[in-house]
């Protein structure tokens, strides 16, 4: 015991020493899987890549207005079906070469190249048609059609032509671990972490010499480490641990709105779940207040809680959210039982059966969600259990989630607990449009509903914000009734940074967009 304490005190000093030097070290829940923007899959990927690359346009972290650091001037051309972009001069890549319009067009061509196996590029293939260099620093980017928000469609990171053999870019190139960008930091991925070294440029003067990213598993230990100044930042602090952080004077919680919302996707193609009434019954069976209280730690009636219930696929602060649709907070067992009985389910020996077969719900959850909402899977399982459903519970690794679930191969799962985070565009077409061609790319259970498809196409065709909002309001209403998802909540995300880290404005989603302004005095 005494030895343990002696070691611990030694440990604290050791942890403290680890934080010194002209570097800022921070923990992510997991290390980025790649530093190549074309293959970003996790939030950690997006955050890391934001340090290394410049996106053509981005949203200001504070005002949310559309901004750019590398475009000198731009104008729409060909009746809005194209945009002429002139890059600033003197922009340098991390390898010292200078950035030109050729790089911009190379990036576009690479994304359009079918040999680039990138889902992100695939997304742009529906938007971009081509790019041609017009003089040294100007390029004409053509769209597939006229968009009401053309520049918002150009949020991709620029890649250096010189770093690639061809426009067919694959994830296994050395570039994924040791990229060449034009962003404020030169990044290099190691086995245990990523080191970002400041790179002064015409458009970037980072105020921090080096960033060190390492993986921090147990959130509790992460919190203790930052309090001991073992690291200066933690990207994600689970709600349950936020009080510990607030209690320290040397660490501050920093909110960053990921516009991420949680859901339970329902296998609408599977037997009894195909019946809308059963989905509605499940929706009524859940006691969301209890889930939130036990998994997130929000007391009933708590003011400005980090977790707001939602009734559709948007966060309440979004312009697309339909406030007319109420949220379901408490369970209503009587109504849900009636709906189930109407749908032809029968209770035998306390548990539901369908056509004489006993029902055994197979419930899965994206494993990392457990860090943010501990026990959520078993809590949901238990509530359905109390409601009379036998079940099996499985966590699903992020990798497996990407491989099986998002590709519509969820197989015999009945319910899947997951989370979506929006980037620049709050677009849910990929989630709810029936699969086919470019549509419904992440439609988990291959949900297909013609009226939903129609509304989604209306949104796509919308030329004004109000038209787009109107379409999504109707979508919200339809989904809240048809329930391919049981919508849970928006959970705001908080980071913790040492108070010595100043002016650390955090951008939604991409996080480090304003890193140039960050300062750190020890």
């Amino acid at each position, binding site marked *: 015991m005494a030895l343990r304490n002696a070691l611990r005190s030694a440990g604290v000093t050791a942890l403290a020493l680890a934080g010194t030097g002209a570097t800022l070290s921070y923990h992510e829940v997991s290390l980025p899987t790649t530093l190549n923007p074309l293959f970003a899959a996790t939030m950690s990927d997006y955050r890391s890549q934001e340090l290394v690359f410049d996106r053509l346009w981005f949203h200001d972290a504070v005002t949310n207005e559309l901004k750019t650091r590398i475009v000198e001037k731009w104008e729409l051309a060909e009746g809005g079906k194209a945009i002429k972009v002139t890059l600033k001069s003197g922009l340098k890549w991390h390898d010292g070469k200078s950035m030109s319009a050729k790089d911009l067009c190379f990036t576009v061509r690479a994304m359009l190249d079918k040999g680039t*196996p*990138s889902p992100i590029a695939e997304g742009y293939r529906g938007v971009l048609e081509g790019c041609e260099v017009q003089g040294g620093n100007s390029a004409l980017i053509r769209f597939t059609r006229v968009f009401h928000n053309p520049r918002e469609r150009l949020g991709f990171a620029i890649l250096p032509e010189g770093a690639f053999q061809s426009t067919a870019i694959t994830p296994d190139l050395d570039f994924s671990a040791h990229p060449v960008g034009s962003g404020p930091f030169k990044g290099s991925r190691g086995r245990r972490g990523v080191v970002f070294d400041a790179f002064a440029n015409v458009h970037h003067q980072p105020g921090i010499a080096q960033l060190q990213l390492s993986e921090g598993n147990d959130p509790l230990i992460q919190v203790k480490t930052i309090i001991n100044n*073992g690291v200066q930042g933690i990207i994600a602090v689970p709600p349950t641990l936020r009080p510990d952080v607030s209690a320290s004077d040397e660490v501050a919680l920093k909110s960053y709105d990921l516009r991420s919302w949680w859901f339970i996707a329902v296998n609408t193609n599977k037997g009894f779940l195909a019946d809308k009434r059963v989905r509605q019954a499940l929706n009524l069976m859940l006691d969301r207040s209890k889930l939130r209280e036990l998994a997130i730690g929000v007391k009933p009636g708590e003011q400005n809680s980090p977790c707001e219930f939602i009734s559709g696929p948007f966060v309440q602060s979004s312009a697309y959210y339909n406030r007319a649709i109420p949220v379901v907070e408490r369970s209503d067992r009587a109504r849900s039982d009636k709906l189930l009985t109407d749908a032809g389910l029968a209770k035998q020996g306390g548990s539901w059966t369908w056509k004489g077969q006993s029902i055994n719900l197979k419930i899965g959850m994206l494993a990392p969600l457990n860090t943010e909402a501990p026990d959520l899977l078993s809590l949901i399982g238990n509530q359905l259990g109390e409601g009379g459903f036998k079940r099996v519970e499985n966590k699903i690794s992020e*990798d497996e989630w990407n491989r*099986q679930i998002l*590709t519509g191969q969820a197989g015999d799962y009945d319910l899947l607990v997951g989370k979506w985070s929006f980037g620049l565009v709050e677009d849910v077409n990929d989630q709810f449009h029936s699969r086919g061609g470019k549509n419904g790319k992440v439609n988990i259970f291959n949900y297909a509903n013609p009226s939903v498809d129609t509304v989604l196409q209306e949104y796509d065709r919308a030329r004004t914000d109000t038209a787009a909002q109107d379409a999504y309001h109707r979508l919200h209403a339809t989904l809240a009734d048809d329930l391919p998802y049981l919508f849970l909540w928006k959970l705001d995300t908080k980071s913790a940074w040492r108070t010595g880290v100043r002016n650390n404005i955090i951008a939604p989603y991409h996080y480090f967009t304003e890193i140039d302004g960050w300062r750190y005095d020890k």
Partner: protein
Amino acid sequence: MTRWWIRPLVRLVAALLLPVAVPAILTLLIWALPGDPASIICPPETCGGSAGLAERWHLDDGPMGFFRHWAAGALHGDFGRSWRMLQGVEVGELLAEAVPTTLVLLALAGVPVGLGVVGAVTGRLPAKADPLFHVLGLMPSIVLGLAAAALVQLEFGAGAFDGSARWARLVGGALVLAFSDGALAGAVTGTRGLFSAEARQRYVGIAVLRGETVLSNTLPNVAPALVGQLRARVLHLLSGAVIVEALLEINGLGDLLWGGTIWQDFGVVLAAATAFAVLSAALLVVQAVAEVLVALHVRRAPAVGAE
């Protein structure tokens, strides 16, 4: 004694077989899994259309073709690049770091085990100490490993992997390997058992009456069994390295294999598993050679006939 060469021969054959069989079986497994190999190796969500990958990785030539290409590359030290675990990094590069690290780990773990063996052979290590080793050996590596990990974390912080932190992890891991799961206990008692059994043979007593020493008589006779035991011990350590390295975040082969497995990065798993197979094969060869040397030593006789 007439066909003393059979056992070494079997070992050599096994040694040749292992490094080929292991990757071959793994390759078959890739095809045995549900879904197409390309999307197993890199999920469409991250790699998009898998047709390109299939071609790049020669997955479209079926298991045989894939294995041929892989093996040909491997022979020239080209194990391809990591698709998932450490995207873009050459697997050969990872091996180049992992293999020496694991060898150092084994060497460090070998010190206490080796001392134990020598102590048992020479009788320096009293049999009274065996129960102590046994109790220590009952500890599973996960428990000792956690203790070691805690010490490292307290001393150097969670994110420290270089310099003295690296060595602390290595030494900690080595001690865990050496003492947990009965590694040392087994080595000591096993060796002691071998020698005491041999020393009880009548010829040893007679040799003493001839003024010879016990060890000079017993050592050559138990050598084959001893080498066998030692090989088993090293293999035991090698296998244990997987857990210990993953637990203490040591950049060795075991950790590489663990990472490859949880990321389903078959390129990495193939390479790491093959590296393990090669190490194990090397042990077999060492044992075979030792057996041959002993056999030749035993057969040694002065050239006679000349007078």
